[in-house]
């Protein structure tokens, strides 16, 4: 790790405050970013990290406070100002034009021109050149809609680099990446920092912070609660600064004997536009066990989840739930029969941001007592009182940070929005719980709580299917791990067999060494593309 503490500050934020209605998102935050360093910003969900980054990038105007770049005060009234000052940001939520090519996305807003028109060749050349310089190879002519998540993120970084960003903000960049993708991203970050770029990294993951950053700032409730030099700190210290307490790692003790089979998938095939997304897979999940599905994103895991829930139909094969063949059933009937799903895309699929938190917590319960007032003839009616009472209860129980259930789901921070989804799905008490990336974007304290709940669910006799990119999560929770590659199950590992190495090897195609897979090719080996 290079020593950069002595280099000059590239950016200084002082006394930054921002309120949203009753919520104080940032409260007098000071942050100093040194040139050529990697600076991690950590904090619980809703601590104000994204807000601070948005302020730094000119997307949000602070109520008070000052920003200096290279020592001189600046005011960013729009991202344009920030970009001009040398900042670039990769958002938590990708902002790409799906119908356009990689090159078009990269040069958008700062296009090379010829005769007044966009010079496509120059744009493509630029993408290739930047890709080579930073190790971000990608086909400039590929359409973004066809890229994997990891590739999309490269495009995002290329966008910033194309504008000669010397200060690069990455908001939770690893939340959706596979281990391989994470390590190649870190290589890129290191390379950039070594060539003088200042990198700000917002993340919840302690090990990432420890491995890639030079300095760490911790936020809690909008205030700075700790500043550390990475070399001088420990994971425990960071966690304490974030949460104000010590966090225990929960893990599966393997102490439950599985019962009857709850989910039985047989010879399932999912195809789309003639391409098989899932090819002929079979597996069971029994009561009292957590079955993990590991795999690089885009290898058919999501399609399996959709097929279980019923939002996607099987081309062939069957899904059985508690002994009943539900293959042709509607989502509603399957849910009623006993399946709950925590979906990967919580904003697109798992919630309605314009509705209240209480209403978001109601869906799926709205036809069953007590909310769907199911007393005799009152079937199909909704009890507003029960709805409110229930939302109060769940907000309390799941520690959702919001003034009240009558606020919209859209006003919640990323992690709290995830808690709403989890609260709703866990409270169905369904025999089968499918959890897809359940701790995505969630802080360590909340991860602990969610992991605890998943284990409790299992201990109480529930069957859990856990789809995750996080090998550590699978190791901590799963009784068995299935590994998916190109739409097929390529490995089944028992608790004893499952290790970081064995899962990682299976994910990348068993024998191939992971780290070198993506060199000198414009179509990295990320399995089936979306």
């Amino acid at each position, binding site marked *: 790790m290079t020593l950069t503490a002595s280099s000059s500050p590239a950016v200084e934020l002082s006394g930054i405050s921002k309120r949203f209605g009753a919520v104080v998102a940032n409260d007098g935050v000071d942050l100093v970013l040194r040139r050529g360093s990697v600076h991690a910003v950590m904090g619980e969900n809703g601590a104000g990290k994204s807000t601070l980054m948005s302020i730094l990038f000119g997307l949000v105007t602070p109520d008070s406070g000052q920003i200096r770049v290279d020592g001189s005060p600046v005011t960013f009234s729009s991202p344009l100002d920030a970009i001009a000052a040398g900042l670039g940001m990769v958002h938590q939520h990708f902002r790409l*034009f799906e119908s356009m090519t990689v090159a078009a996305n990269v040069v958008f807003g700062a296009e090379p021109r010829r005769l007044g028109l966009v010079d496509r060749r120059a744009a493509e050349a630029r993408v290739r050149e930047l890709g080579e310089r930073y190790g971000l190879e990608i086909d400039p002519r590929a359409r973004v809609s066809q890229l994997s998540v990891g590739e999309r993120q490269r495009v995002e970084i290329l966008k910033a680099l194309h504008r000669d960003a010397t200060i690069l903000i990455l908001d939770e960049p690893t939340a959706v990446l596979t281990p391989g993708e994470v390590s190649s991203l870190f290589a890129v970050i290191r390379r950039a920092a070594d060539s003088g770029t200042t990198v700000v990294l917002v993340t919840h993951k302690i090990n990432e912070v420890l491995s890639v950053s030079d300095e760490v700032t911790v936020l809690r409730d909008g205030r700075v609660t700790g500043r550390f030099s990475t070399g001088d700190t420990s994971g425990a210290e960071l966690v304490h600064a974030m949460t104000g307490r010590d966090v225990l790692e929960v893990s599966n003790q393997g102490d439950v004997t599985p019962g009857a089979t709850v989910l039985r998938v047989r010879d399932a095939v999912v195809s789309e536009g003639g391409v098989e997304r899932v090819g002929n897979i079979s597996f069971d999940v029994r009561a009292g066990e957590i079955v993990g599905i590991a795999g690089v994103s885009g290898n058919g895991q999501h399609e399996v989840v959709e097929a279980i829930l019923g939002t996607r139909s099987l081309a062939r094969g069957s899904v059985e739930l508690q002994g009943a063949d539900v293959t042709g059933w509607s989502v509603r009937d399957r849910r009623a029969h006993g399946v709950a799903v925590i979906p990967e895309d*919580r904003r697109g699929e798992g919630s309605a941001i314009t509705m209240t938190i209480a209403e978001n917590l109601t869906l799926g319960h709205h036809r069953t007592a007590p909310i769907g007032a199911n007393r005799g003839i009152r079937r199909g009616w909704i009890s507003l009182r029960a709805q409110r009472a229930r939302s109060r209860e769940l907000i309390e129980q799941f520690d959702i940070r919001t003034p009240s259930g009558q606020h919209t789901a859209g006003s919640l921070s990323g992690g709290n929005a995830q808690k709403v989804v989890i609260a709703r799905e866990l409270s169905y008490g369904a025999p089968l719980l499918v959890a897809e990336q359940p701790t995505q974007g969630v802080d360590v304290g909340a991860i602990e709580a969610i992991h605890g709940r998943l284990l409790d669910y299992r201990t109480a006799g529930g069957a859990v299917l856990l789809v995750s990119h996080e090998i550590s999560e699978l190791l901590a929770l799963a009784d068995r791990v299935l590994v998916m590659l190109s739409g097929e199950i390529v490995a089944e590992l028992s608790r004893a067999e499952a290790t970081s190495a064995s899962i990682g090897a299976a994910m990348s195609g068993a024998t191939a060494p992971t780290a070198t897979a993506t060199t000198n090719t414009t179509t990295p080996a990320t399995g089936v593309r979306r």
Partner: protein
Amino acid sequence: MQILELSFVAAVLLAATPVLFASLAGALSAQVGVFNIALEGQMLWGAFSAVAASYYTGSAWAGVFTAIVSTAVFSLALAVGAARWKADPIVIAIGSNLFALGITGFLMRVLFDVSGSFSPRGLQGLEKMRWLEGIPVIGPIFAGQTPLVPLALVLIVAVGLWLKFSPRGLRLRGVGEHPEAASSLGINVSGYQFWVTIAAGALCGIAGAQLSLGNVTVFTENMTAGRGWIAVAAVMLVAGRPLWLPVACLGFGAAEALGFRLQGVGAPQQLTDAAPYAITLLVLVATRIRFPARRASISTESTP
């Protein structure tokens, strides 16, 4: 029926021209993410202001100019509302269509003291391009038309290419496809939406002027008679891509003209009325079957 005759082509083109301009307005709006169904009302206002200005100045081109400017102003409510204030463009459009219908009839009565139609003696219409007569193919098609007719085609092609190849065109499309993405790259999203909506107003002004000073030389209450809605349907049909608009609009024109001609062999008038709409719907159904909708986008983090 003589479908392949040049006079038929000329008739179709003439009927389609106001719709072409209006649908270009709609397509541009669609490209920046504003669902613009105010075309009908704006075209009506354009038709009225063109006639009024031509009447007062004695010059049809002054009428066209006035229609462009005044309809651009007319579209301010939609531009400000939809682009700057993020109000619902559909609601504003429905209101402004009603307003246009009322205000044109109202002004006709208070300004000219007539109701129904206004076509005073000596009202100047747009000149036809008679000098093209004698040129094969071009002559029979365009000699009886105003210069606005070829302009519509040229403009659509120019705008289509501009959208595809120019930096601003690229940005404009980006604004509609993913406004947050565009704005995070420093693009003034609401600025683009605002000016495009104003430009759409100006185009509807030309559409109206062509209708009231080109196709005929008169203003009549509700003279657009659904042409703006046909333009909306055309925009839908081509999914907002301008280069396809001539196909869609000329398709409508042909459907209508064909319906008229079918009356000659005994088809009821109601068939003519229904044909353009029914055909559009059938084409929409047919094309959607062949091009299934794109899959929903993948997103990673979901912080609002």
